[in-house]
């Protein structure tokens, strides 16, 4: 049996191959399809989720490695102040095109803003370079991260 904390709730699952990547566990077993398969080799970031707040590529992480840690997916990140601000900024600026990579982008952006409250363009580029968007929404991703940072900083001041 595997016990996992996902988006604040603990679930138990029987008969799970512990070597199954977390991505496929989330998508096929836990029915959380927000995290996406793009490459299976940690090259594109579409599968990004948080493990104890850190952005990880779930396509190469065995589900066993997530036991005892808090898994957060795009479906649950709204409960996090930073994640909520990031999603709101994404919506305000209409970042998405095809949308397939965006859950991963949002998870990486949220992790970035947890460690760097006011990232420069260069810091954004460095932190987000692992997340591929074939539609080329990168300009708006940069702008939305700045937007979310501004929202959070204004909230902090008030």
């Amino acid at each position, binding site marked *: 049996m595997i016990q996992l904390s996902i988006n604040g709730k603990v679930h138990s699952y029987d*008969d799970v*191959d512990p070597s*199954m*990547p977390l991505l*496929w*566990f989330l*998508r*096929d*077993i836990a*029915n*959380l*399809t*927000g*995290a*996406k*398969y*793009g*490459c*299976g*080799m940690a*090259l*594109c970031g*579409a599968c990004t989720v948080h493990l104890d707040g850190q952005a990880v590529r779930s396509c190469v992480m065995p589900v066993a490695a997530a036991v005892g840690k808090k898994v957060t*997916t*795009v*479906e649950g990140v*709204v409960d996090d102040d930073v994640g909520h601000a990031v*999603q709101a900024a*994404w*919506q305000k600026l*209409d*970042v*998405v*095109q*095809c*949308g*397939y*990579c*965006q*859950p991963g982008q*949002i998870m990486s952006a949220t992790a970035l803003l947890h460690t760097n409250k006011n990232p420069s363009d260069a810091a*954004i*580029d*460095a932190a*987000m*370079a*692992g*997340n*591929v*968007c*074939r*539609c*080329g*929404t*990168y*300009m*708006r*991703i*940069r702008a939305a991260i700045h937007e979310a940072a501004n929202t959070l900083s204004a909230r902090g001041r008030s």
Partner: protein
Amino acid sequence: MSDSARDVFIVNESRRRFLEGMGGLALAIYAGAARADKGWAALGKADTKAIAPASFEPNAFVRIASDNTVTVVSKHLEMGQGTYTGLATLLAEELDADWDQVRVEGAPADVARYKNTLLGLQATGGSTAMANSYEQMRSAGAVARAMLVAAAAQEWKVSADSIAVDRGWLYAKGHKASFGQLAAKAAQQPVPNNVALKNPKDFKLIGKSELHRKDYADKTDGTAVFTQDYKLPHMLVAVVAHPKRFGAVPKTVNADKARAVPNVAAVVQFSGDNRTRFSGIAVLARNTWAARSGRDALEIDWDESQAFKLGSAEILAQYKDMAGRAGLVACKEGDTEAAFAARHARLIEAEYELPYLAHAPMEPMNCLVQLREGGCEIWNGEQFQTGDQNAIAAMLKVPANNVALHQLYAGGSFGRRANPSSDYLLEAVSIALAAWDKGVRAPIKLMWTREEDTRGGYYRPAFYHKAKLALDGDGKLVAWQHHVVAQSIIKGTPFESFAIKNGIDGLSVEGLADMAYEVPNLRVELSTPDNIRVPVLSWRSVGHSSNAFVSEGLVDEAAAAAGKDPYQYRRDMLSKAPRLKGVLELAATKAGWGQPLKPGAAGEKRGRGIAVHEAFNTYVAQLAEVTVKSDGSFKVDRVVCAVDCGLAINPDVIVAQMQGGIGFGLAAALHGAITLKDGVVEQSNFHEYIPLRINEMPVVDVHIVPSAEKPTGVGETAVPLIAPAVVNALYNATGKRIRKLPIANQLSA
């Protein structure tokens, strides 16, 4: 465990999600599974039931429910280009709906109702969605509005003229009602034949930047449903093994280890046709990881006797040889022979090369199939309903109407999901048929891994161009002779007979044979190889993706040879093309072409380049600014883009398509190449087929030409110009002319 014992799933649960999502459609639910040896078509009776229609459905494009929801039905695929938003804007404008009450769903396959009026079949392509829907969707909205007004007039006993409609509400003196309140009554009104459309000056939604995309929320909170995400009860996932070489077939297969993987349900062999799709082996499992693990455990010996075994080097050598011989004449203006024989001041001779390109959408190809008696249902990000429906019906030997196609979001496509050969859909159906014969009744989702997607063929063709240009004493371009060598994306498809004229596939020479520049003597020849069995397909902007790079490079070479300013040189040749000249001037003005570029740091060189082109009746100019370091590495700093697409329906979507198209085109310009060695594709995943990443994305400034002309498409037209704009900028910075894509490390080599 034997396959038959655990493979037979009886699908008898309610598919509520399907019913909710696709209201009004009948669907079959199985009462039981028949004997496997009977074959799928001989099965027992299906139980059909339909759900009630929405309260008010005046036509194929809109439903208004009593809860006030306005559902717009999109006949076009939403693959990122914003078509759901555009079509909803058109309909909601004439309906006078509130933008927030409007939702969009994808249309099923039904060519009678959802034909692309420009293409003549149900398909999304050629940047035609807005152009072919502009009046259709507005009329659909206006009809619904008229029926709501008629209902209110009847209810309130007032004249229709006295009723006003605004943001989802109807008003008359002393009366007020919402769309939802009037929906049931509106449904009883006669459908008017002729309705007047608004004067564009009265538009409230069309042309407004502040409208959010209709898919902006579900694509940020994880609820958007792509084919990758769609599930049916008892569904099995199919992961496949394809041969390394096009045209190879399985010789011997040992699937013992694959079957031993827990949760693997079956292993089946499927046959391609040795030309348009692969033969291979599929492992069917209850989850993706099991299917993948099972696939990896297969032991297959391939018969490669009929396989394609040429490499990129051999293909290029053949193309060079073909370019040295006479081709078919695609365009002949003036007399190039005489012009080259006469005195001319300068001669430019150049060869340009472009590689095969994969579409590489973020969502690898996939397709969900449920076979049923006498037909099937398909869930897919469906870009070519009519072609796919016909191809699947032919494979199943059933009428086309028995193939139901349900539309989902596509995680990108860039042309990949509109294939006249229906490759991955037919593969999915082949697998389902093979599984049926083994007693599998479950729905099956084919999921290609990134590696299958990259190596799966259907690439933008590789191009070789050989050109000769003559300039007179004033530097004027007086003669241009051009030979294109490329595979045809139409030849061998059902569209060959009407798309290829006199042996010439116009898509191979588009943008060249019909160039807007005034060149008095122009001759464009085409050679189309028929021995290269690498599957090819339209790739975002089709022939323009190659030809604008070459024409805009060559014009830049001519300007340099003439000692002229590349902007003025182009402008002087566009006196008969006012809209092209317009975007060229707008981009140059906005970028400050007249002022010097800000210099780079010590050791850095800066440069800028310009390019202008028309594709899909949309006019675009791009100006790129680059910084080149002493080691030859470089960065594209800024791109200024001007676009004239007629009336701008959703300005912010247009801006997004220019930004994104530039990003997509820049990926190809900098890195993109599919290469073959002995017939084997050398790239497999994103470490080898290299995408653009955020650190390489330039700042893009977009300027839309205000226009009252009919709207034209924006999904593709930004793509072809970024490569020439960047290459011309690199020439401006370094004096080195790049004639081969991708640029890669040519500056430092």
